[in-house]
């Protein structure tokens, strides 16, 4: 059992937990993820390790309430426990000191990008972060990203904060203005990562994305998370989740993400009827 020692509501329907997981905290590296299961009937949910504290024996997770399982997860409070957590999983990022990196984060993707930005920053790399969200209220991890970045640019879809438009708009302006980072790291919704890769491909800038494919075991045994990279089938749970974004078949992956939409909808409807619905939606 893994006790939740801290819960924070970062934005509407976006929550942060700090949970006890000493073995994982001891060896977590940027890019690692873990799988949790809330209870006996629960799904195995993969989430990126957003931060870890080996001394306290805790890891930090951030999630957005989008379906039944994440809504139910959001109902847990400090002091409650999560039944199963396994990790660290995936291949961690091989982070070296570079001249400049640009971290492009969309929505809740800022949480998984934070440990990478932090690792680059600690090695002395110039970190330029571009953080986008739908609206001002949905911008999260501002203080954290500012602490590990040399520059942070914000965008909102509705223009309520920072650049009015998608985060890729800022990226295009920077690259068009002559910026040539050694690497762009992009984490966020698939359309956002695909759009980022389109922009960076024009300028010939290496781009690493982190894929959130549908998984079951998360250890390479089921192949649910397979994705085509450079024409080859890869398991994102083991060989990823980070890949060269210019080689990822995003169209295929976006189709694969719809595999269980009907079931997800049914589970959510049933959950809202059987419980009082999740707290986030009542607010």
């Amino acid at each position, binding site marked *: 059992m893994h006790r939740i020692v801290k819960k924070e509501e970062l934005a509407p329907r976006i929550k942060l937990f700090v949970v006890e997981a000493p073995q994982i905290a001891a060896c977590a590296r940027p890019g690692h993820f873990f799988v949790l299961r809330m209870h006996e009937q629960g799904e195995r949910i993969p989430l990126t390790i957003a931060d870890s504290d080996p001394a306290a024996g805790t890891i930090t997770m951030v999630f957005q309430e989008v379906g039944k399982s994440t809504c139910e997860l959001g109902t847990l409070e400090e002091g409650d426990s999560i039944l199963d957590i*396994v990790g*660290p999983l995936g291949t961690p990022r091989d982070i070296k000191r570079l001249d400049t990196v640009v971290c492009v984060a969309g929505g809740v993707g800022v949480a998984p990008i934070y440990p990478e930005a932090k690792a680059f920053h600690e090695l002395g790399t110039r970190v330029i972060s571009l953080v986008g969200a739908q609206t001002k209220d949905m911008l999260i991890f501002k203080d954290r990203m500012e602490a590990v970045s040399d520059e942070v640019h914000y965008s909102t879809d509705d223009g309520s904060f920072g650049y009015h438009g998608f985060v890729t708009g800022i990226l295009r302006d920077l690259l068009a203005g002559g910026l040539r980072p050694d690497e762009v790291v992009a984490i966020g919704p698939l359309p956002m990562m695909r759009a980022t890769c389109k922009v960076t491909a024009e300028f010939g800038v290496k781009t690493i994305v982190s894929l959130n494919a549908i998984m079951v075991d998360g250890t*390479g*045994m089921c*192949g649910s998370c397979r994705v*085509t990279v450079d024409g080859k089938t890869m398991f994102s749970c083991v060989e990823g989740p980070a890949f060269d974004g210019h080689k990822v078949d995003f169209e295929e992956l976006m*189709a694969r993400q719809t595999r269980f939409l*009907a079931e997800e909808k049914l*589970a959510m409807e049933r959950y809202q009827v059987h419980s009082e619905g999740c707290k986030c939606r009542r607010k």
Partner: protein
Amino acid sequence: MPAKVDRHPMPKQDPRERIRNFNEVALGYPADVAVGEAMRCIGCPKSPCVAGCPVEVDIPSFVKLIAEGKFVEAARKIKEKNSLPAICGRVCPQETQCEERCTLGKKGKPVAIGALERFAADYERASGTQAASEPAPASGAAGRVAVVGSGPAGLTCAADLAKMGYSVVLFESLHSTGGVLRYGIPEFRLPKAIVDEEVAYVKSLGVEVRVNTLVGRTVTVDELFRDGFDAIFLGTGAGLPHFLGIPGENLNGVYSANEFLTRSNLMKAYRFPEYDTPVWVGKRVVVVGAGNVAMDAARTALRLGAEKVSIVYRRSRAEMPARLEEIENAEEEGVELMLLTNPIRVLGDERGWVRGMECVRMELGEPDESGRRRPVPVPGSEFVIDIDTMISAVGTDPNPLLVRSVPGLKLGRHGNVIVNEETGETSVPGVFAGGDIVTGSATVIAAMGAGKIAARGIDRYIRAKRERSE
């Protein structure tokens, strides 16, 4: 000399009924039938059946105990050698092992040793006397051993070491123990309550179980040695699914058998939405492959509501690797066999979902390196079938994750761990291995046999090490 009695058939659920539920298909012998079947054993002097058992169960003795009505004693006799009798009684291929060598089989049908093993184990469990037979927990004085993987090889190795007095920690990466017994074999063939009970028995021997621990990631083999383990057994199985390598395999509606079965078995998706994990199955399902896993996937698809399920296999019936019993069960339930047929392409719609499969007819040519006649495509025989779900059950490779993290561990061409077959020793001192991680995907009982051999190898290794240091 008792009158000649025919082998007693295993009672089964009616096929029309059973395709609508996930309850066990085979119902087990009632006590009187078990006694009758046990009495068929002529107690021949050489007991060839025992040599056919990879874990050396004293078959004539336990069969005799059943014939005498001493059912609990029969179960304990089995457990002297086999810690998982209710599982073996259900999933062992007895027809190629103990029963194949039975003297009665020379002229008629062999004694139903598997069904009797199952009966004794089930009887002991139902009678609640299992607890009373629990040996004292291992003292641990002999040494500490880490067993990685709680499938058949790991459970057997752990149980045998605990019985020898070792302190054993059994590591499992999933949230639940049993390995393939849990995620691979469906409820209707091996009820999970039975796996729970047999794992509980292994725990009662003093084995400590740590789930959610992926050795190689959560903790490394080197760290285990540093933590004071004297030896490590790798029983991580063959869980890496193969795909066919044909176009269209990443379309929605294409599963590996591992994914399909893991969703249904481990995650209990067959009880969705009561359980949160979904599994989608369409109306027209094709399972590619003809092993036991393919039969399990086909029969699971039927129970999940598919209207028609076909096995597509490139060779003929004679080469099908599944147990005859499983093929019969599948056919009884309405699974269609499309033999000498090879898929060449999966066809999808504009939204990325499977709509069909292009196949080619095959014929058998000269024997290949496996000794089976090589299937060759018949030119111009391509045809398309309408399907919406495809399950790829064409085998698995050894799990690469842990073994590649152990420096110096010698691996074979398929990523399998190379061991000394007599001892289970690998190229790394103190590291042993057995089961599918060594052989590639094989049977539950072969993995158990390898776990047993490695337990002895580990015992010898630790004793020798201690003698040297004294």
